[in-house]
């Protein structure tokens, strides 16, 4: 059965994804390798759905974190020597970011536990709730003096007139590289026979590499081209 059942995860008791992750990672008997993260993701999404409304933001945040954890796990599953090789290829930045956020979160999780205790300690003390008579709650009109500054009201209205700055979308310009362009390039190369992927993207930026790969998948789907890669991270040879 799924590891979620083995873990007996009661998702209701977790305050959020960090809480869940910390619990998973810190669980003594638990090795990250043994956690079926897919089950955790599904259980979490189910859990969100059971809440009545699917909180897209929370779900997205959770999936991002799970993706980071998944990446870590996949690194752990590789044999030792390949881990070293991967270390150069996959910067540990994502892991460090995740760790930093988990550590920052841990402080407030501790503070929250303390506050829950303080609240429990305070609960048995009861307070007299005899209301002050209404006429004592407000100033008598005759005795009222000017104590407030009208400028605070004008300032408040000024603040409410403020609109958020329009989103700057300039960095989201249309990709200068289109799939149609890269399809044309690939078809041109195919007419010559075989070629390597590196050749097809020589001198191109990341966007070019991405769009070219997408164009290649498109060609494969249409049956116009196939490719082979003899080893991971080896050269990709494309042929008609």
């Amino acid at each position, binding site marked *: 059965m799924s590891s979620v059942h083995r873990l007996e995860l009661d998702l209701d008791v977790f305050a959020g994804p960090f809480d869940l992750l910390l619990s998973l990672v810190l669980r003594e008997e638990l090795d990250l390798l043994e956690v079926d993260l897919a089950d955790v993701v599904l259980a979490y999404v189910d859990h969100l759905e059971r809440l009545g409304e699917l909180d897209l933001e929370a779900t997205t945040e959770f999936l991002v974190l799970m993706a980071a954890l998944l990446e870590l796990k996949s690194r752990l599953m590789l044999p030792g020597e390949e881990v070293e090789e991967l270390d150069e290829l996959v910067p540990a930045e994502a892991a460090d970011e995740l760790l930093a956020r988990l550590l920052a979160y841990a402080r407030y999780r501790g503070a929250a536990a303390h506050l829950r205790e303080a609240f429990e300690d305070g609960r048995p003390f*009861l*307070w*007299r*709730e*005899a*209301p*002050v008579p*209404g006429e*004592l*709650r*407000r*100033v008598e*009109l005759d*005795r*009222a*003096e*000017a*104590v*407030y*500054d*009208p*400028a*605070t*009201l*004008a*300032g*408040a*209205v*000024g*603040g*409410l*007139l*403020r*609109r*958020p700055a329009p989103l700057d979308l300039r960095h989201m310009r249309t990709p200068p590289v289109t799939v149609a362009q890269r399809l044309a390039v690939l078809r041109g190369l195919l007419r010559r026979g075989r070629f390597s992927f590196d050749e097809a993207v020589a001198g191109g930026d990341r966007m070019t590499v991405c769009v070219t790969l997408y164009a290649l998948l498109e060609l494969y789907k249409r049956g116009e081209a196939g490719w082979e890669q003899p080893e991971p991270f080896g050269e990709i040879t494309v042929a008609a």
Partner: protein
Amino acid sequence: MSPLARILQALLFLSSEPVPADELAAATETEAPDVLGALAELGAALDGHGLVLRELAGGWALASDPDAEEPARRLLARPRTPALTPAQSETLAVVAYLQPVSRPEIARIRGVASDSAASTLLDRGLVEEAGRSPFGAILYRTTPLFLKLFGLRAVEDLPDVGQWDPSPEEEGALRDRLLAAGAARAGAAPEAQPAAP
């Protein structure tokens, strides 16, 4: 004091009305004679304290020592003009400049429900109800006490917003601009419909 007398003292402290002995017995899961004995003990223990135990028509009650009357008047009747919280300032500003204005309009402009702030302002006599909108929502306006506490002769004397206006070049009535800005902050497209009167 016996444990029962201590608990009875706490119960009478918490009750704003006199409590009959049989209700005290039920609450403490004892019998009425035990309660009466413990009340006698409590009355004796309060000798020299600032509270007195009194048997009134409806039951038993704690009251403050009559010697405390003058200080109590000074403490409780002091001018009740605590500083306005940010939520209260914003709510009061919307009422002051747009009056009459409804609660839903205030919420749309501020981006959050403002019921607690509005209740406090009502309670302190700074705003009051002013009938209902065509849609049945309660309308609010400011009071004479508001004018006095802000040192204003009339609502028309409220300062011009211009100095604090982040975009004075914009056209349109203040109400429409506030509603549009509230909608923009909420991430929604500014509503084209005219504001409810």
